């Protein structure tokens, strides 16, 4: 007997703001501990929250891209619990009136596109970061108060692959929107997965487990697949699933129980009295919604429909915004869209890799690459020469200058080429004889001789054609 897997995902995403959700302290990653804090973040007595307008704007951007309905009245609530990483003893969140609700995300599956419904997206503040050491616990409050959105899906996913596609889709989308850095390994995007099994055809849900601490998309898939097998195994052996929180352990590639859920915690939610409901200006919301910029899906369609790229290439480009942005830049100087895609995907990535650079550190001038590809197209340089030129472009050099300096202008002038070809033919009567006897490989040998005589500058395709023509004349 096999089971249907039911998966819902909660994603916490740090918003890319300069300051915190409710204070003017800077938001930064990797700064010295407890340097990006003020009295508000530390929950000192008497402090009050002031709402970050940029955070609301980013939340609206995300909610719009997720096709959510926007609540034009922003309200916050308190979620009460004691924990040492929670300075105020409560978290300000949006329990009762999320800024966005009832949306969806479309993912690609093996059976075509599928809509994953989004229950809600709401704003809240992050907690401090704790480091548990043998001699005690250290708390870094830099993260405390960082603006977050939490995106809660419906339980619409049915496999680890779908879940991974959903997270990837959200990750790329939020990055394109400028909403978040979405760095899962740094924790600026965090993913909790709820998973349960049920016999096919059943409407009700089985007992679920929650998997936390998934720091990469591939781990999302791996953890789910492990958990599916684990739960299925238990059920098939007549055992029950315990409702609990588990974490994914990379070393053992399995999930490990963290804590049992003993009934639901009562967070005693109530409206935050220090923030009156904020009525958003309709025109402001509209201006945000109309300026979302191009989303990855739209970009992919443009690449395929307007630029004629293969879907696979379009996917590779769109997956990394900076790569895709670079590609678009090059396209301003050159219309050979497919060639540009090849160079961007293969050569640029390889060159960056060789230099140990990220795409963010890419030194390649898009105009130079465009110019170079134009030269290839006009057969001014050969593909082989282009690789040398590209190396120099990566060093910041103008391809025109490289070509001049290295004297590598490809000979595409038929009369000049013909002169060399005829010299080569005169010196190789045996090859002419072979050609006449039907040995086609003689042409290859002759092309090689011409390339040699021209010091590699002869245009190979043109040379090939001209040699055949000349041979026929003899």
């Amino acid at each position, binding site marked *: 007997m096999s089971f249907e897997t039911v998966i819902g995902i909660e994603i916490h995403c740090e918003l890319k703001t300069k300051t915190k959700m409710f204070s003017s302290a800077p938001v930064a990653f990797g700064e010295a501990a407890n340097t990006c804090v003020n009295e508000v973040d530390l929950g*000192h007595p008497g402090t009050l929250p*002031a709402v970050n307008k940029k955070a609301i704007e980013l939340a609206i951007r995300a909610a719009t891209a997720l096709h959510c309905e926007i609540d034009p009245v922003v309200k916050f609530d308190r979620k009460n619990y004691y924990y040492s990483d929670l300075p105020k003893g409560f978290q300000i969140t949006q329990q009762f009136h999320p800024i966005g609700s009832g949306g969806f995300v479309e993912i690609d599956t093996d059976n075509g596109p599928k809509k994953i419904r989004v229950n809600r997206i709401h704003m809240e503040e992050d907690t401090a970061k704790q480091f548990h050491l043998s001699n005690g616990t250290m708390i870094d409050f830099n993260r405390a108060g960082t603006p977050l959105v939490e995106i809660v899906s419906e339980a619409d996913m049915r496999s680890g692959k779908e879940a991974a596609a959903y997270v990837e889709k959200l990750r790329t989308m939020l990055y394109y929107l400028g909403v978040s850095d979405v760095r899962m390994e740094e924790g600026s995007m965090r993913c909790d997965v709820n998973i349960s099994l049920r016999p096919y055809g059943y409407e009700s849900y089985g007992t679920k487990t929650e998997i936390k601490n998934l720091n990469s998309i591939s781990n999302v898939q791996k953890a789910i697949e492990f958990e599916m097998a684990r739960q299925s195994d238990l059920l098939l052996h007549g055992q029950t699933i315990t409702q609990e929180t588990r974490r994914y352990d990379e070393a053992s590639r399995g999930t490990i129980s963290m804590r049992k859920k003993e009934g639901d915690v*009562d967070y*005693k939610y*109530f409206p935050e*009295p*220090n923030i*009156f409901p904020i009525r958003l200006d309709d025109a402001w919301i509209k201006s945000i919604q109309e300026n979302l910029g191009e989303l990855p899906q739209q970009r992919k369609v443009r690449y395929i429909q307007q630029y004629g790229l293969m879907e696979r290439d379009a996917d590779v480009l769109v997956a990394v915004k900076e790569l895709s942005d670079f590609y678009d830049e090059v396209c301003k100087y050159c219309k050979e869209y497919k060639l540009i895609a090849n160079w961007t995907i293969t050569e640029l990535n390889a060159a960056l890799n060789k230099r140990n650079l990220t795409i963010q550190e890419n030194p390649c001038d898009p105009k130079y690459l465009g110019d170079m590809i134009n030269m290839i197209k006009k057969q001014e340089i050969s593909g082989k020469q282009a690789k040398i030129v590209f190396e120099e472009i990566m060093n910041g050099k103008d391809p025109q200058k490289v070509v001049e300096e290295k004297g590598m202008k490809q000979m595409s002038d038929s009369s000049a080429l013909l002169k060399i070809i005829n010299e080569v033919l005169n010196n190789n009567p045996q090859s002419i004889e072979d050609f006449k006897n039907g040995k086609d490989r003689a042409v290859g040998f002759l092309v090689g001789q011409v390339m040699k005589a021209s010091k590699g500058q002869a245009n190979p395709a043109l040379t090939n054609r001209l040699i055949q023509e000349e041979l026929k004349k003899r």
Partner: protein
Amino acid sequence: MRITDYKKQKPAENAKDALAKAKALQPVLNAVVTFYEDTKQQADAADAKAEGLLRGVPIALKDNVSTKDVRTTASSRILDNYVPVYDAAITEKLRDAGAIFIAKASMDELGMGGTNLNAYTGKVNNPWDVTRISGGSSGGSAALVASGVVPMAIGTDTGDSVRKPAAYCGVIGMKPTYGRISRYGIIPYASSLDHVGFFTRCVEDAAVTLQVLAGRDDRDLTSSFEPVLDYSNHLDDRIEGKRIAILDNVQNAVKDEESLKQFDTLMKSLRAKGAVIEHITLRNDLMQALLPTYSILANAEATANHSNLDGIRFGMREPGASVEEVMINSRTKGFSPAVRKRFVTGSYSLFVENQDRLFRKAQKVRRLIVQELEKALQNYDAVIACAAGSIAPHAEDTSEEKLSQTYLVAENHMLLGNFSGYPSITVPLGFVGGMPIGVSLTAKPFEEQQLLNIAAAIEKETGLADQTAEVKA
């Protein structure tokens, strides 16, 4: 001495005299938690503020006002060692206006109380009779103004914590409209009910103080953009044509004949000056509901507001085997039983299974009460009533339960001002058995000028401006 009198003198002299008097009276009144030691430097700085509305005026702050580098305890053990890293908005405003801080005044722990018996440094005594209570929660501030130590002191008012001690101590106590003064840096009791207020000995000083404190502060999202007026220069004590409603629910609940007689005398004389004085009765069930509604709402907010006091980042820390144990021990030892009781009440009303019938219901009742007051004020400039059901009781036979049981409506009606956020003031009315009594006035939102003007007219009738209790050190 009024603020204007202080401003004519040298700041350094004012500071020295006030501090000396505060220290001399401390064994008698016990009104101070912390004395400022840098009053000389403050006086020098104030001296340079020629335009300051409070230039060189010595004042006291309730000990829940955050003061950078100066211990701020809110009269709670858990904050006994707490030294803030920042100034409250009003601390900045007062300093900018040239005020000199003399002392941080005692209060009921975290503002929770109406007697000032529940302060970590002990009870505060009433300057008119030290065997009686000052009232609370801003008791220290009230006592320092009443005894003439300072002409003005800051208080906060969540239930009636400025206006009740003002009545007991025979001074003016005002809380303006919710949002009129920034709460940034005020250690809260209940955020939706907390108001910054102040004590003075005359209406003119109250007007000046309000002018200094009022105004929008971006750090407090509930603070108002309403323009701040020149209240003192617009003071007008002509009462003719003012429409004032006597709140009969309260007057009927007050048992003390002498208080009622003096109240009637005042009404007669105001009428004689041309005021229109009428009687109104608010729905009695709503008036009866004031206290239970308050105790649910205030304590629900308080339980969350004070969850930051866990001994981890600041304040008194009790040892424990784990972080959780440290928090539990610190909170258990850090708060008095009375405060813990309020937390339990508040927490209980927020439990999922109780929210609808307690917290949410209390919010609805609050709205009904506010609508009732709003309706009543449509035809009047102010509502007036006796501020309290009796004079300040003796410390030994006082408990809040007892007071409220005896005078449920008379003792709690000033909650109307906190539920609605409407501006409200207590003005001295007279004396009963040598102890002061007061009247309470409440006006429409942001009509502080109106309120001050009516108060000025009453002050003129009673002749009780500038009265000071002579306390023997």
